[in-house]
């Protein structure tokens, strides 16, 4: 009540308001809510128009992810944001829901891969250090276009190869994974040109299939005849030329790797198409030497111990390896009520190419049959005397019993011949042969004659007489010896005693302090004194010869 006023009488003095005509119009103030509505409407429209697809991804763990904060980026451009993180119903996974921008709709397909970028330290390097500060984010690889989907399985590891990386994928089959892992390098002439991007077991579990990616432009070096081999670790060779150590790189020593190349003798062939399958050889030598891709299996039955025959044992023919043993099993033959050993061998017919033994299947069968007729048989043989390892050899045994070529399923069964007691028995055979070759009959006959003669001599009377005389002679000799003992021996003792006494005396005499010695010395001194006097006399006489006449006279 701001404008209340007192009840007054002089209100007539209050001046009258002036008057202007009133214009009716809509108040301008309504512009304000109108603008508000427009802005609000625009915001709603913008939000709706920018609303992109909502996708779900499953991860093993939501480490580093946060609903409402974690971004989805591609090439560092923000494409969306994680809106919810929930556990899957069976608690095995984390379901991440994300809202993407509208633009993302165009490339989402079943080939799109999502993964979380975190700081990672691995054998092949350190990545995602930036996320230490900025926090983890989800990134994606659009992949090739395909069927649309909004549900994805997130990768636990970032893929090594993304769709925008030029190069080619190839498939390698190997018997085991070895030390290879995702990210293991692939070398060409010791330059890293690619890496292993995936590996998995073949559907039937028979081998391991590696997927490698060769970066452009190196994929041009992969030809149809290219061979891949493991470059894991060190390759140390000791031969007549000394010790050689070979390795692809230090990294491959640590984490293994794959190398490829073309055997020099071979024509490289055309460039390999993407996804071409190759065999991954165990090492370079194997890759370069073994050019046998075809393998045929055959079966051998042995009726003896195969102790020492291991899987992989070589199958040789005249010292040349033709294949290897791939299976050894004991089989009970119900018909014969007998145990047999079934050996499956794998042969590489390509090894015969150069000898001209090539032909189609029918020819080959006939060929084998003709070989069998000529005694072509398999046999167990000791390959190594030290370890007792056995190998299987094929050879011609013309004496072998004839055997037909039979098939067990698709596999031919080659007849075998028993092992002649191994190496020792062969030696023994040799000895026997030598013995056999000796002129035993002649020797025996001569020996018999000699014995006969000897017998005749022994039985002759002269011999008996001689023996009798001999015994008499012996008797006499005995007596003589007895005489010697009783008579001669004491004499000898006496003589010896005398000799010993003489020697003792002689020793006494010869001693330096013996009286004889002293006397001798004195005598000798006397003699020398006499000699001196005589010399003086002679000198005197020479000078005074007259003294002989006149005597010595007076000294002048």
């Amino acid at each position, binding site marked *: *009540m*701001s*404008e*209340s*006023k007192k*009840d007054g009488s002089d*209100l007539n003095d*209050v*001046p*009258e*308001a*002036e*008057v*202007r*005509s*009133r214009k009716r119009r809509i*108040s301008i*103030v*309504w512009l*304000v*809510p109108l*603008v*508000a*509505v427009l*802005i*609000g409407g625009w*915001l709603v429209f913008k939000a709706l128009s920018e609303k992109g697809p909502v996708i779900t991804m499953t991860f093993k763990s939501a480490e580093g992810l946060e609903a409402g*904060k974690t971004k989805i980026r591609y090439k560092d451009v923000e494409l969306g944001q994680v809106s919810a993180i929930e556990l899957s119903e069976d608690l095995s996974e984390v379901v991440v829901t994300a809202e993407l921008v509208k633009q993302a709709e165009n490339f989402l397909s079943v080939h799109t891969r999502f993964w979380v970028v975190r700081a990672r330290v691995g054998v092949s390097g350190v990545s995602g250090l*930036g996320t230490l*500060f*900025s*926090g983890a984010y989800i990134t994606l690889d659009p992949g090739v276009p395909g069927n649309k989907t909004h549900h994805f399985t997130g990768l636990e590891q970032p893929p090594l190869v993304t769709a925008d990386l030029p190069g080619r994928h190839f498939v390698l089959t190997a018997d085991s994974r070895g030390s290879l892992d995702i990210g293991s390098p692939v070398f060409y002439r010791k330059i890293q040109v690619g890496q292993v991007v995936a590996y998995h077991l073949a559907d039937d579990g028979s081998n391991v299939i590696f997927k490698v990616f060769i970066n452009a432009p190196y994929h041009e070096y992969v030809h149809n005849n290219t061979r891949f081999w493991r470059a894991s670790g060190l390759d140390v060779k000791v031969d007549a030329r000394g010790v050689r150590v070979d390795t692809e790189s230090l990294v491959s020593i640590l984490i293994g790797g794959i190398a490829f190349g073309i055997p020099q003798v071979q024509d490289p062939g055309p460039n390999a198409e993407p996804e071409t399958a190759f065999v991954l050889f165990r090492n370079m030598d194997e890759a370069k030497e073994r050019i046998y891709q075809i393998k045929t299996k055959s079966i051998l039955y042995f009726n003896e111990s195969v102790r020492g025959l291991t899987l992989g044992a070589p199958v040789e023919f005249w010292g040349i390896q033709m294949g290897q043993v791939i299976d050894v099993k004991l089989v009970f033959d119900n018909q014969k009520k007998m145990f047999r050993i079934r050996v499956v061998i794998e042969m590489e017919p390509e090894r015969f190419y150069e000898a001209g033994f090539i032909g189609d299947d029918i020819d080959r069968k006939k060929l084998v049959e003709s070989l069998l007729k000529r005694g072509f048989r398999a046999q167990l043989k000791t390959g190594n005397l030290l370890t007792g390892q056995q190998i299987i050899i094929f050879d011609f045994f013309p004496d072998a019993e004839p055997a037909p070529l039979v098939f067990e399923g698709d596999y031919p069964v080659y007849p075998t011949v028993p092992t002649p007691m191994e190496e020792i028995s062969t030696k023994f055979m040799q000895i026997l042969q030598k013995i056999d070759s000796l002129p035993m009959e002649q020797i025996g006959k001569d020996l018999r004659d000699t014995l006969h003669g000897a017998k005749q001599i022994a039985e002759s009377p002269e011999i008996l007489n001689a023996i009798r005389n001999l015994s008499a002679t012996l008797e006499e000799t005995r007596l003589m010896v007895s005489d010697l003992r009783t008579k001669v021996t004491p004499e000898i003792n006496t003589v010896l005693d005398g000799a010993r006494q003489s020697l003792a005396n002689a020793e006494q005499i010869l001693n330096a302090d013996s009286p004889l010695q002293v006397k001798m010395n004195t005598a000798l001194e006397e003699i020398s004194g006499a000699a001196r006097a005589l010399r003086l006399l002679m000198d005197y006489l020479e000078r005074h010869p007259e003294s002989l006449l006149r005597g010595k006279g007076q000294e002048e």
Partner: protein
Amino acid sequence: MSHDLKTARNQGFISCHTCHLLCRKAGTDAIMICPRCGSRLHQRKPNSTKRTWALVLAAFIFYIPANVLPITTVTSLGIAQSDTIMSGVLYFIKTGMWPIALVIFVASIFVPLIKLLILGFLLITVQRKSSWRQKDRTRLYRITEVVGRWSMVDIFVVTILVALVKLGALASIQAQAGAIFFCAVVVITLFAAMSFDPRLIWDTKESLNE
């Protein structure tokens, strides 16, 4: 509240808004001018309810984006985090700082909303010429006017932070669209409160008396 209340209005007087000169009312369908200062004379604030309604509605519309859109983006060491008012409140609740959360909630969410609701309520009652607890309603209006300006605290905090926290890659804060809408809500609400003429609350009484 006296029953035979004499007001300027029912006595045919009108007060100038500018120089507060009391004038006698002239003819009804005319624009009156203050003879002393030349300002336009109005019995009540012109189109008070319409204007207030328009502004309240606009404020209501802006209130939605103000709360849905982020008000600031804090970039710290490369981590960009956008926050709406409510997410800030929830953050403080989560970290156990209840008093701060309460202050922000009251100043930024509760007060603007309650102001708009009060104004709406007053407008409805005025239009229905309700005589229900007029004094209390007037008190509500006074509270609205007094409290209204404090909602601007939020905007001031944002502007100061944006200006101060410019540490490059270490930390920086940007104001986002939400701040603008929030500012619009507060300002429009202030205008709405200003354009509302509390005398209208009491006009019913007078018309009853007449």
